[in-house]
């Protein structure tokens, strides 16, 4: 079990570093999406390209989704996911706890 704990901590540190290092290593970078880089590349490779379809929500709104609302929706997505995982993990953990209590009796 001690080994598992060590692996967990090491992996968490590694994960955090992967995320944080670019922020500090590349000060001033705008960290735009690689999607945008992709569409720039499309024009570079194949000449001017007009997307022939606009996203449904942008059409309904008659413009781009405001940045704050976009991050809200991304948070909703994350929240749904984390909620389900946390709920199930919570049940698993409590179940194991109860089992070990029962085994002690």
């Amino acid at each position, binding site marked *: 079990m001690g080994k*598992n*704990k060590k*692996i*967990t*901590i090491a*992996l*968490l540190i*590694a*994960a*955090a570093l*992967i*995320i*944080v*290092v*670019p*922020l500090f*290593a*590349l000060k001033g*970078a*705008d*960290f735009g*999406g*690689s*999607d945008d*880089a*992709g*569409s720039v590349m*499309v024009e570079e*490779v*194949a*000449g001017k*390209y007009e*997307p*022939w*379809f*606009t*996203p*449904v*929500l942008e059409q309904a709104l008659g413009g*781009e*989704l405001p*940045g704050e609302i*976009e*991050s809200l*929706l991304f*948070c909703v*997505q*994350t929240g*749904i*996911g*984390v909620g*389900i*995982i*946390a709920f*199930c*993990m919570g049940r*698993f*953990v409590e*179940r*194991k706890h109860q089992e070990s209590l029962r085994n002690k009796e």
Partner: protein
Amino acid sequence: MVKSEKRIIFVAILFAAVFGTGTTASAMHIMEGYLPLGYCIAWGVLSVPFLVAGFIRIKKCLESNRRNITLLAMTGAFIFVISSLKIPSLTGSCSHMTGTGLGAILFGPAPVSLLGIIVLIFQAILLAHGGITTLGANTFSMAIAGPLMSYGIYKLCQKLKVNKLVSVFLAASAGDLFTYCVTSIQLALAHNSSDGVAAAAVKFLGVFAPTQLPLAVLEGILTVLIIMALETYGTQELMEIGFIKKEVNG
């Protein structure tokens, strides 16, 4: 150990969520309207058999035991979380992971295609991220090709008797990277003007791959962490789907 590990993992997820949502930009997936109609349809048609197979597999999996739904929901949720996190990369742009490796390792590639398309539809409609017209192509790269790669790598590692956590890491990272390779090829097939498909694919890959490489490693790490958590607390469920052999642990 019991409590602390659980806490560490949740703190990590929250931590990742805070960092990931701090930067807003669209990343990965082929954008709405960027594939000609013919390609949209072709990729869509190509995806259908996998989706049908996935549906059948999921139905069978749930019929054999209703309780499998817990793990299935968790793998779906994992894709939700992971693909909503936009992570800064060493190239100075942002991208996100796919999260499909976990499902491919636990359930095989077909069921993941169905879980993946749910996320893609969510993002295409609500977030203008990816798109309805490019849904077929994006499904193929993220929810079919990537998981197939993960599954293949995982099975290969098992044959070669590689350590389980190492196999999980390799499978998840490879699946993530492969998704972007397929995206590059898809873009190159549609947009290649003078210099041919191969040259165009290399160019697109040059945009995606360096950004994605650190994120593939990160995806590998996160997948290993969740597998470790499941192996500690969800042993029964993992046995149920055959991920852990019954006679060894039970």
